[in-house]
């Protein structure tokens, strides 16, 4: 079995260009770092840790017998808070109730890097387990750390591998948990930011006094940034409206979604020549979509003695700290970023826009300021999942694929490489000039690449006169993908149902794939409305395998959530824009999945491979639903949808 490729950071994981460049002169820092709660250091195998990891602040035992685990990872609904508590409790040999988890606070927790790429499970969990296993010795009579501790095998697990819901569920259901947008400080003002009329427009002039006259306690213009803050959100909005009425802008992009794909092709950094010979080919397109987490970007910023503290919802806190330090001419240790568990990200909160804005306004006001984006701002000014233009080409010989060429323009390299055994493979990611601000997303480009690849595999199966399942199996040497594919097909009844005549306007389809060291396969039945050219997901059976499962309840939840989020991108989600301005920046115009989109049957099969290392589960399960539905639409109609959202 060929090894599944290890995770490599996609370029979109790394950086987005800064949102603003503030023109502020560097101020001398005063005093030393006041914050910082140095905790007991307990790790024996520090040399084995990845470089840069501050493992000394990993675990603390309090006088009350409570263990506190510190991690720079963040909780945004994917489950690290509970998972890390389980990991520590398992190796410490204590009940889960005796473990608390402190997540990202740059002054208190280790820098565990960005929370992305499904890396918490394979990266941070083992680090926490090693620290906890070392600390276990402290509980013994010898009271000493264990050098090179042995981690418990899955067969010995009493806490890991068992289902748990969020350890802080009570705070959530009572409304007691303070999300970033809920943080309130004494004397805090509410801030609003002036937005340009189009992407790339420059602020020529604005009258900040107009904002003050209209009730703002502070108003500022700094380069392209302008905003105000007031005692209430209501007064801040009114003051901003008064400022906006005086603003003059210049320039701005002219792009439109109607010529998006022509634009991507025209601006491609490289032209990939066709394979030549007797080939099958198809072009696939995926739209720009927005993450639209339920909690928009939010931050509270407070300056004290030249030092800055920010509470915000971001998956990349240490990078946001660097962004803030750069913007305000501070040293990193003069900036503290605290990340309360926040309301969803899906790869969309790797940046610190709201933090910068709140900090700039707070500096002007001399008081703490909260900035919480509106839904419209979140749709317009947050970065997008990139649109993709994908050329797929293949040569069939004797019912097998001999040559394969697959080019992704603009959206990225994640999931680009086919898991199928093909002698001649040419896969390439070619950047283009993106008309919108784009960045990461759940599995990055793997959604687009799986959509195109698995839809094209179906086209090739049909050309070869083969059943979609048999055609895939004939090219699949990866045992893990084969196992999930067969598991899904068996539960779904693929072979019997292929033989049976489908009900009117019904079709079945399947898709499979791998990403971030986990594997997935889905079988679906859809119902199409031929007049409206609309489709409904009637049934889905999805099998998923991510090595040894750490928390089966959360894994199942993540798979279900991924399926339904992927359904949204398949059915309707699409950012429309014209003259550099998003046209559908509302939930009433950008339909995300709702309760009635639930299929009649949604079945998740988890294959638990205790013999394999644990991989993350919050991303890969999203990739299969869209291509499976495209293939089911072909089964129902004979037409091939080649775009997301699905159109034919």
């Amino acid at each position, binding site marked *: 079995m060929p090894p599944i490729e290890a995770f490599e950071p996609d370029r979109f994981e790394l950086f987005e260009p800064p949102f603003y460049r503030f023109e502020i002169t560097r101020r001398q820092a005063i005093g030393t770092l006041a914050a910082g709660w140095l905790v007991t250091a307990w790790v024996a195998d520090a040399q084995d840790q990845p470089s840069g990891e501050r493992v000394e602040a990993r675990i603390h035992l309090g006088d009350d017998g409570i263990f506190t685990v510190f991690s720079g990872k963040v909780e945004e609904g994917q489950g690290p808070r509970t998972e890390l508590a389980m990991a520590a409790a398992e190796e410490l040999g204590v009940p889960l109730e005796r473990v608390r988890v402190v997540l990202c606070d740059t002054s208190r927790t280790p820098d565990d890097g960005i929370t992305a790429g499904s890396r918490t499970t394979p990266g941070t969990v083992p680090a926490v387990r090693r620290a906890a296993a070392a600390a276990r010795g402290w509980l013994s009579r010898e009271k000493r750390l264990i050098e090179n501790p042995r981690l418990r095998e899955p067969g010995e697990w009493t806490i890991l591998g068992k289902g748990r819901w969020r350890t802080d569920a009570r705070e959530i259901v009572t409304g007691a948990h303070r999300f970033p947008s809920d943080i*309130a400080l004494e004397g805090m003002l509410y801030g609003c930011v002036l937005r340009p009329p189009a992407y790339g427009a420059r602020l020529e002039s604005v009258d900040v006094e107009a904002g003050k006259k209209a009730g703002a306690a502070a108003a500022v213009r700094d380069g392209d940034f302008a905003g105000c803050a007031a005692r209430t959100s209501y007064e801040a909005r009114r003051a901003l409206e008064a400022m906006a009425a005086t603003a003059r802008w210049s320039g701005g992009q002219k792009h439109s979604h109607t010529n998006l794909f022509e634009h991507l092709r025209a601006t491609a950094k490289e032209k990939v020549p066709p394979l030549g010979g007797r080939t099958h080919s198809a072009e696939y397109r995926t739209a720009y979509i927005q993450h639209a987490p339920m909690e928009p970007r939010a931050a509270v910023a407070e300056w004290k003695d030249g030092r800055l503290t920010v509470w915000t919802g971001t998956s990349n806190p240490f990078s946001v700290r660097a962004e803030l330090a750069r913007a305000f001419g501070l040293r990193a240790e003069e900036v503290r970023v605290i990340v309360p568990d926040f309301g969803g990200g899906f790869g969309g909160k790797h940046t610190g826009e709201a933090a910068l804005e709140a900090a700039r306004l707070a500096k002007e006001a001399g008081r703490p300021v909260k900035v919480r984006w509106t839904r419209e701002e979140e749709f317009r000014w947050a970065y997008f999942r990139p649109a993709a233009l994908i050329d797929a080409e293949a040569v069939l010989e004797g019912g097998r694929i001999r040559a394969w060429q697959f080019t992704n323009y603009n959206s990225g390299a994640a999931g680009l490489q086919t898991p199928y055994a093909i002698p001649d493979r040419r896969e390439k990611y070619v950047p283009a000039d993106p008309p919108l601000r784009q960045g990461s997303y759940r599995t990055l480009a793997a959604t687009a690449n799986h959509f195109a690849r698995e839809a094209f595999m179906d086209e090739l199966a049909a050309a070869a006169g083969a059943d979609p399942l048999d055609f895939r199996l004939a090219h699949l040497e990866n045992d893990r993908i084969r196992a999930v594919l067969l598991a899904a097909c068996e539960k779904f009844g693929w072979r019997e149902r292929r033989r049976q005549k489908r009900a009117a306007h019904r079709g079945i389809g399947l898709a499979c794939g791998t990403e971030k060291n986990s594997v997935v396969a889905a079988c679906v039945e859809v119902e199409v409305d031929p007049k409206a050219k609309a489709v409904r997901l009637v049934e889905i059976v999805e099998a998923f395998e991510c090595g040894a499962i750490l928390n089966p309840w959360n894994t199942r939840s993540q798979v279900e959530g991924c399926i339904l989020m992927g359904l949204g991108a398949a059915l309707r989600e699409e950012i429309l824009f014209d003259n550099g301005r998003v046209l559908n920046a509302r939930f009433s115009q950008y339909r995300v999945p709702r309760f009635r989109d639930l299929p009649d049957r949604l079945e998740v099969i988890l294959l638990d491979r205790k013999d394999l290392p644990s991989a993350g589960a919050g991303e890969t399960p999203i990739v299969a639903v869209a291509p499976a539905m495209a293939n089911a639409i072909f089964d129902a109609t004979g037409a091939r949808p080649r775009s997301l959202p699905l159109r034919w």
Partner: protein
Amino acid sequence: MAVFRFTVNGEPREVDTFPDRPLLEVLREDLNLTGTKFGCGEGQCRACTVLMDGAPALSCITPVRAAAGRRITTIEGLARGGELHPVQRAFAEEGAMQCGYCTPGMVLRTVALLERTPSPTRAQILEALQGSLCRCCGYPRIVAAVEFAARLRRSGSAASGEVLHAAD
């Protein structure tokens, strides 16, 4: 500016503010009740749901003047003396949350649904919650929680409806 009086979670409250300010912002900014969430500002996601005289209301598009004289229940007012309301218990025990930001609105919608329809069918649950968005798409677990809450409520392990009438 004008003075408005209403009860929140059984307590009489008085605010001196702008009449067309959204109730959501008065609750969050003036009364420090941040359990009620902003999601969209146009009544499209229902994260801002509160109960007004027992019926669900969208606090993000309800001006504070429309709340005058009304009984408002927010998520903070559901638990009694540390004991969770059956709907809260059901959401916690069924794991009906991922990020949890939509949970307060979902819980209050469910409280109102079960008052009206103690034994809802699956179709009735989907209908009642159709407008409530969960971007984590945890819909299957939320449906399970609503069904569990209905069972809890019927079994009488907690007195049903007490919250809705507590402020009377």
